[in-house]
């Protein structure tokens, strides 16, 4: 995860929150890349471990939750100086990595178990 890309973007107003749009967008991009990468890795792990059916989707949700927690920790738990709401880092793009997850899950499962 890039450390210097998540720059803070709130200006010096005490009462009125203003956001630097470019930085906000760049932070969102970082979140998207992290989620995609973790869903690919999670797919490979789920396939190697041999999860099938519902267990695999549980693994996906788990991996996404771990990604959210790690992103929050990376932002120093002060979400409001990097994003404009909690939903952005916790829920945004949650289902976007599902297709990549399923592809790599199928791939790894087949290679390992039906070889």
């Amino acid at each position, binding site marked *: 995860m890039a450390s210097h890309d998540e720059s803070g973007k709130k200006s010096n107003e005490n009462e009125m929150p203003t956001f630097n749009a470019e930085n906000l967008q760049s932070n969102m*991009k970082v979140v998207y890349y992290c989620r995609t990468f973790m*869903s*690919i890795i999670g797919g490979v792990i789920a396939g190697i471990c041999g999860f099938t059916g519902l267990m*695999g*989707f549980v693994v996906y949700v788990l991996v996404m939750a771990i990604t959210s927690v790690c992103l929050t920790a990376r932002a120093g738990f002060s979400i409001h100086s990097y994003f404009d709401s909690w939903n952005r880092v916790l829920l945004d793009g949650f289902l976007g990595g599902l297709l*990549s997850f*399923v*592809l790599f899950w*199928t*791939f790894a499962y087949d290679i390992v178990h039906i070889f």
Partner: protein
Amino acid sequence: MAEELVLDTAIRDWVLIPLSVVMVLIGILRYFVSKLMRTSQLPDSKIIKEGQVIIRARNLRAAANFIPVKAFRARKVYYTNEENGLLHVPKGQAQNPQAQMFSDPNMAMDMMKKNLSMIIPQTLTFAWVNFFFSGFVAAKIPFPLTQRFRSMLQNGIDLSTVDVSYVSSRSWYFLNLFGLRGLFSLILGEENATDDTQRMMQMSGFGFDPSKSLGAEKDGLDIVQHDWVLPKFEQRAEAVLRKRLSS
């Protein structure tokens, strides 16, 4: 009946992996080809001017609360004035840029080239998959699906007792098609034209931009309510400075 089929390992070596590798390579090739073909477009100065005016008006609308009322009103009149305001387009002229854009031969050919570069590799790969890799079970998807998907996923397999989880290579092609989009966005950066919906959005936003959005920006500016958020700013600045100087 959930019997476990034993599949030949040669299928793994010669179907799954080559298909995925080919699709990744074709995606990368398409990205570079589209980048090479895109460099021949001279921007029109009138369109760029209008775009910049729109951006300035948008900035004014977004930051309206940070400048005093009089300054905001002066700027607003500059943009929305009926006679010579920048955003005011007489009705006759409004249609011209749009019509011109769609009948311009260069623009039409450009769009067609983008379309073709998207559709041709997909069609070719699909035909290749159908020709070579049909008629056998290719992969097992790890989650169960209902019987209705059987006709979609098991094209070449004519046995109806095989579990729906065992799919043909056509469905592996489609799974790759959708699943590799995430991978492409990671390895190619943001500017990759492999996503169909993105391309649609770009194409539809391109033709309507100048003529309609001028009117939209004008309306937007007209309805902005000015609410100054820095009313006692001098006092606050004084307080902050005092605190700093005394500590």
